């Protein structure tokens, strides 16, 4: 991977951060990007948390990969999260590979990339590492924080850890603890990487290479889980890939095979295999109720944040039921919570694609929260 690092904005987090694993770290880089302008009253800031394979480049063109930002459907001028109106911030998670402190960084002790010497991090560590960024940008209280999938999990953690840092919050298609099925799928991804001999116990960087085959399979697993059964059937069915009949070989005869292979192989150009191990581990360890005696209701106690939970009917990775459990806990703790289920066949991916009902809901909520937040500040 060649990183065009000149495009990556970073802060140095000098404040010591005690990780959940017990280690304390300080002076580590946190990469971020912003879109739009922070207004004079500093009340138009929206923090976005990215998902497993996302990065800080939410909108426009990702200057490192030259591809579209991962949430261009929702974020940009005139879009649901309108950057003409709002100041959008996103940080690369620690453990990641787009400029924030991660396993591909050089360790100060060995002058070599960490590899598996990188500490095992948690969603809580990831979220706490981002606090300094808000300080750096001079934002005391966010208008809104949002994120889908692992981004939603970070957001729930953010609200539980900092109950007064955001006026409103939109966790999308996520869960308050990783289910057995989700852990199993992550384990499949990790085992695919570890089974690739190039991985070499995480030391592939010594040979300046990547366990491409394993990482590609890991990505394919992910892509299957992001689509719904119906969506996949409608999109691919049994259609053949640029051929009239079966080839009687193991080449990609079917379109769905070709799609997965393409997704897998383009992914290895932009993502570090060890980062996948670390970030999926952080997701698996996530269990918000475990952090609070008395469970999830206790986690959301004294919440001033106004929540909107959104789930997608065909999402089998983070189901409507799991999202509703968050709503129930928020209700039980007396929090201000709205909930909407979007009916779609686009599966877990729904929040990333053009899903008009979802985007309308997102926009309607954020705009109404902005009006409220402005008025509250005046009082």
């Amino acid at each position: 991977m060649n990183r065009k690092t000149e495009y990556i904005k970073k802060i140095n987090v000098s404040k010591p951060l005690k990780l959940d694993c017990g280690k304390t770290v300080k002076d580590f880089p946190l990469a971020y990007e912003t879109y739009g302008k922070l207004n004079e009253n500093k009340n138009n800031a929206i923090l976005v948390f990215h998902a497993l394979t996302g990065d800080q480049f939410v909108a426009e063109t990702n200057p490192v990969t030259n591809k579209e930002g991962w949430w261009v459907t929702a974020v940009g001028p005139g879009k649901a999260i309108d950057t003409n109106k709002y100041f959008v911030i996103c940080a690369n998670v620690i453990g990641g590979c787009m400029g924030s402190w991660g396993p591909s960084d050089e360790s100060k002790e060995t002058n070599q990339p960490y590899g598996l010497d990188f500490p095992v991090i948690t969603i809580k560590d990831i979220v706490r590492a981002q606090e300094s960024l808000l300080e750096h940008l001079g934002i005391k209280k966010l208008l809104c924080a949002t994120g889908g999938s692992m981004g939603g999990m970070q957001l729930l953690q953010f609200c539980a850890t900092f109950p007064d840092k955001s006026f409103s919050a939109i966790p999308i298609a996520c869960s308050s603890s990783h289910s057995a099925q989700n852990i199993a799928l992550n384990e499949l991804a990790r085992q695919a990487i570890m089974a690739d001999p190039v991985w070499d116990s995480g030391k592939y960087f010594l040979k300046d290479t990547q366990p491409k085959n394993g990482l590609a399979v890991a990505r394919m697993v992910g892509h299957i889980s992001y689509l719904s059964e119906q969506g996949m059937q409608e999109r691919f069915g049994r259609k053949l890939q640029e051929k009239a009949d079966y080839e009687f070989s193991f080449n990609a005869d079917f379109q769905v095979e070709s799609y997965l292979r393409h997704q897998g192989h383009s992914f290895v150009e932009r993502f570090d295999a060890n980062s996948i191990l670390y970030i999926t581990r952080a997701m698996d360890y996530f269990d918000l109720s475990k952090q609070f005696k008395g469970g999830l209701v206790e986690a959301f106690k004294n919440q001033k944040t106004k929540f909107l939970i959104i789930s997608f009917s065909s999402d089998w990775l983070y189901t409507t039921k799991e999202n509703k459990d968050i709503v129930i806990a928020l209700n039980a703790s007396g929090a201000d919570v709205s909930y909407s289920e979007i009916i779609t066949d686009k599966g877990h991916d729904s929040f990333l694609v053009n899903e008009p009902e979802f985007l309308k809901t997102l926009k309607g909520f954020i705009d109404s929260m902005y009006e409220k937040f402005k008025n509250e500040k005046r009082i």
Partner: protein
Amino acid sequence: MKKEFKVIANLLSNNTRVLDVGCGDGSLMNLLVKEKNIEVRGLELEKNNVQECIYKGLPVIQGNAETELSQFPNQSFDYVILSQTLQAFYNPDKVLKELLRIGKSVVVSIPNFGYWKVRTSLLFFGKMPVTKSLPNKWYNTPNLHMCTIKDLFDYCDNQNINIKKVIGLNEDSTSLINRGNLELKNFFSKLGIFLIG
């Protein structure tokens, strides 16, 4: 019916917590927030209504009151409101008990099947009544369990549910209903609004 919402709003104390079950597009919630500084929550089944509420900045949960009231803790609201939907549930008895569990008080309004126009429709024309408050035909009505003001009165008495106040509504005029004037009011009120619990 705007008048109904005003009557309901007048029944509630300021600065309280209210759950509006079947909150529609949030009109009543909006009124309660603006005029009574009430902290509102809504539960609504219909997708478009849910979105309307969200656009207005009103907290609303998409869900079915028939099956999803269990998510709200005991006595977690000062009032729970159910406006003209009791008759549409499969099991109104169960729903009412749930409302009384969640709210310290419950406001239930019903289209009165004892209203004289409804009675005469069946008596003189031998047809199921179609009125302004009951606009559907027998084959497409969502109303499964129609009742009269007197029925709900009797129900509360039989179930030992405390009736705090009952208001009859006919166009723009309202009147208090009690056991003494029940027969008359049950004949002339289009809508009954009960404060119970």
